C-alpha cells in the first residue's frame, strides 16, 4: 500500500482530492477504503447480500403458497381464473422493458453519457409507475367483486360460478363445495400479500429513482462513480425477477384444468 495509508487522517475524504501524502484519490473514495476497487467491491457484495435477505423475505410467502396450493388445489385453480391474463401479461412486458431501460441506464453511467442516463432513469420511472397503475386497475376489479380477504369477502363467484358470467363464459367452472370455496380466500390472501409486498418494493424503487434523476441531472453518476446506479440496477432487476415468479404462479399455472 502507498504511504498515504500511513497517515491517520480523520473525517471524510478531503475536499481537495488529495491526502497529506500527495497521493491522488477521487473525491468519492470514502476514508476507510484503501482504493476505489475495494470500495466498489464491498458495495456490490453488500448489495448482493441484501438481495439474499430479500429472497428469504419473499421465501416465506412462497413457502406458504406452495403448501396451500397443494392442499387446496381446486380452490386455487378457480380463484386464479379471476385474474386477468391480459393485464398480467401487459404488466410483465412493462416490467421487463423497465429492466431493459434500467440496464441501459447503468451502461450510460459507465460510459459517462449523462443525457442518456437521465433519459433511461426517467423511462424506468415512468414504466414503474405504469406497472403500479395497471396493478391498481387489477386491485380495483378485486375490490368490486369482494375478493379482498376479510369481512366483506364474497364466495359467490366460486359456489355459484354462473353468477359471475364474464368468468363463467370463458372457463365454465363447476361450483365448488362450500368448504373448498372458502379456501379461495387463502388464495387471495396470498395474492394480495405477495403482489402487495412486490408493489411496496416497486414504490420504494420508484422513490429512489426520483432521487436518482435529480442527482443524475447534476452529473453525480457520470464522473466515474457508478456504484450507486449499479446497485440500484441490481435492486430493480431483483424486483423484476420476483414478478417473473409471481406471474406464472398466480396467473398462469393450471389455469385450464
Amino acid at each position: 500500500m502507498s504511504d498515504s495509508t500511513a497517515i491517520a487522517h480523520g473525517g471524510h475524504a478531503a475536499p481537495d482530492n488529495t491526502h497529506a501524502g500527495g497521493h491522488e484519490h477521487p473525491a468519492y473514495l470514502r476514508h476507510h477504503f484503501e482504493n476505489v476497487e475495494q470500495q466498489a467491491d464491498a458495495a456490490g457484495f453488500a448489495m448482493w447480500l441484501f438481495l439474499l435477505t430479500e429472497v428469504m423475505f419473499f421465501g416465506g410467502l412462497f413457502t406458504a403458497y406452495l403448501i396451500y396450493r397443494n392442499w387446496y388445489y381446486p380452490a386455487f385453480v378457480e380463484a386464479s381464473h379471476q385474474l386477468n391474463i391480459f393485464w398480467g401479461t401487459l404488466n410483465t412486458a412493462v416490467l421487463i422493458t423497465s429492466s431493459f431501460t434500467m440496464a441501459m441506464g447503468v451502461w450510460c453511467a459507465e460510459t459517462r453519457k449523462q443525457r442518456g442516463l437521465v433519459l433511461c432513469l426517467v423511462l424506468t420511472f415512468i414504466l414503474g409507475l405504469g406497472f403500479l397503475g395497471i396493478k391498481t386497475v387489477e386491485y380495483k376489479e378485486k375490490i368490486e367483486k369482494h375478493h379482498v380477504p376479510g369481512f366483506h369477502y364474497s364466495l359467490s363467484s366460486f359456489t355459484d360460478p354462473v353468477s359471475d358470467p364474464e368468468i363463467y363464459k370463458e372457463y365454465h367452472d363447476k361450483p365448488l363445495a362450500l368448504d373448498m370455496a372458502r379456501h379461495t380466500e387463502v388464495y387471495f390472501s396470498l395474492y394480495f400479500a405477495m403482489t402487495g409486498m412486490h408493489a411496496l418494493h416497486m414504490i420504494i424503487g420508484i422513490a429512489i429513482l426520483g432521487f436518482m434523476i435529480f442527482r443524475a441531472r447534476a452529473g453525480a453518476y457520470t464522473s466515474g462513480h457508478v456504484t450507486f446506479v449499479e446497485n440500484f440496477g441490481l435492486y430493480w432487476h431483483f424486483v423484476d425477477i420476483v414478478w417473473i415468479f409471481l406471474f406464472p404462479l398466480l396467473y398462469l399455472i393450471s389455469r385450464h384444468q
Partner: protein
Amino acid sequence: MSATIVSLPDQSTARIPKMNFITKENGLLSWLLTGDHKRIAVLYIISLTFFFFIGGALAGLIRLELLTPQTDLMAADTYNKVFTMHGVIMVFFFLVPSVPATLGNFLIPLMLGAKDLALPKINLLSWYLYVAGGALAIYTMASGGVDTGWTFTTPLSTHYVNTNVLTTGLAVFIAGFSSIFTGLNFIVTIHKMRCPGMTWFRMPLFVWAHYAASILMVLGTPVVAIAIVLVALERTIGIGVFDPTKGGDPLLFQHLFWFYSHPAVYIMILPGMGVISETISTFSRKRVFGYTAVAFSSVAIAVFGFFVWAHHMFIMGISNYAVLVFSLLTMLVAVPSAIKIFNWTFTLYKGSITFETPMLYTFGFMGLFTIGGLTGVFLGTSGTDIHLTETYFIVAHFHFVMVGGMLMAFLAGIHFWWPKITGRMYPEKISQLAAVVTFIGFNFTFFPQFILGTLGMPRRYAAYPPEFQVLNVFSTAGASILGVGYLLPILYLTWSLKYGEIAGNNPWQATGLEWQTQSPPLTENFAVTPIMDHEAYDYEWLEKQREKEVASVG
C-alpha cells in the same frame, strides 16, 4: 493469587493517549452522527445496558411473584404481560445484539486491521433502528403491554388477545432490520476489508464466530419479518393464512417463526463463543487447540442451526416422521458445540493459566453452557421432550445457555476488552468477586428450575401448587444474588472510567491486532495499515516483537 499476566505501564508516567477516538470530536452530535465503528459500539453498550436493566427488572418481578404459590403480587394477566415483555426485551433488544453490536462492532475492524466496517452509515442506521424498535417496545409496555409470550404464537396472537400485538410486532420487525444490517456489514467487512496478510485462517476465532452468526442474521431474520407481517395482516384484515376456520394453518406460523428463532439462539450464543476463544487462549498463553476445527464448528453450527427448527414443535402436531428427522438433526447440532468445548478444554491443558476476571467468567461459561447444552439434548429427544416441554425444565435449559452462556461470555468480553475500549483497567479484586457472585447466584436461580420442571411445574403461570414453593424460594433468593452480581460491574466499571489504572496498549500480553495499537484506539484504528505476518494466537511472535522493542529503545 499471585500469578498474573497483567503488565501495566508505570502508573506515575503513563497517560491516556491525547489523540483517540473518544477525544477526536466533542459534543453530543459528534456521537449521534458518527460513522466510527468504535463510537457506535459505545452507543450500543449504553443503550443495551439500559434495555438489560429493564428486562432484568421484569425478571425480578417474575421471581417475586413466584415467591408464593398464590397470585398475590400481581394478577395473572399482568404476570403474562411481565414475562412477555421480559422475553421480548431480553431476546430482541439484549441477547441478539449483545456481543455482535458492542464488542463485534468495536473489534472486528481492529482485529482485521481495517479502518472501519465496510458500511459505516449502515452501521449507524442499524443503531437508530435498534433504538427506534426499543423505544416502541417500551411504549408498548407503558401503554398496556402484550401477553402472547415472546413467540407470538397463533391463533392466540391473531384472534384471542386484545393487547398490543401490532406495536410489539412492529418493534421486533424494526429491530430485525437493525440485526440484518449488522450481520450484512460484518460479512462484507470480513470478506473485503482484511489487511494485507490477513488470510481466512489467520483471523481470530472471534471473527469466525461473528461470521457464522452474521450468516444466520442475514438469512434468518427476513423470514421472521415476513411472519410478523402476516400476523399483522391476519390481525387487522383477517386474511386467513394462519386461521384454521378459513383453511389457514396456525402451525405454519410456528414453522416460519422458528425458522428464524431457532437460528436466533445461535445468533445469540456464537458471538459469545468467539469471546471465549479469545480469553481462553490469552489466559492460558496457548494457541487455541484445533484452531481450524473451532473455526469450522462455528460455520457448522450456523448451517445445522437452520435444519432443527421443528424441535420446538414436537408436541404441536407435526408428523411422527418429522419428529424423527428433526430429533436426529438436533442431536447433530450438539456435535460442533461439543467440538468447541473439548478444544477449549485442551487449550487449557498444559497452559499457563491465570485467573483474571475474564477467565473466571470464561470458566463460568464453559460449565454452565455445557449443562445448558446437554439438557438441550434431553429436549431434542422426542420421548423426554414430551414430558419436559412447556415446563420449567425448558426455562432452566435456555437460561443456562442464554444467561449462563451468553451473558457470562458478554461479561467476560466486556472485562477483557474494557482496557482497550476505555484505556483504563477495571478493579481486579471486586470484579473477581462479582464473577463469583454471578456464578453462585445463577446456579441458585436456575438449577432448582430443572428439578421443578422434571416434577412437572408448567411455565408461564403466575400460580403453582404449594409443594413447589421451596424450590421457587431458592430460585427467587438466587435471583437476588444474581441481581447483585450484575449491579456490581455497572458500579465499578463506571468508577474505573475515571479512577481505573492506565492500561497501556496490551495489558494482557494478547496477540490480536487490536492489542498492537494504542488504547483507546485512534479514530481510524492504526497509524499504519498493519501487515499480518504470523498466525493467530502466536505468542512466540509476540515475544519477538517485545524483544525487538526493547532492543530498539535500548
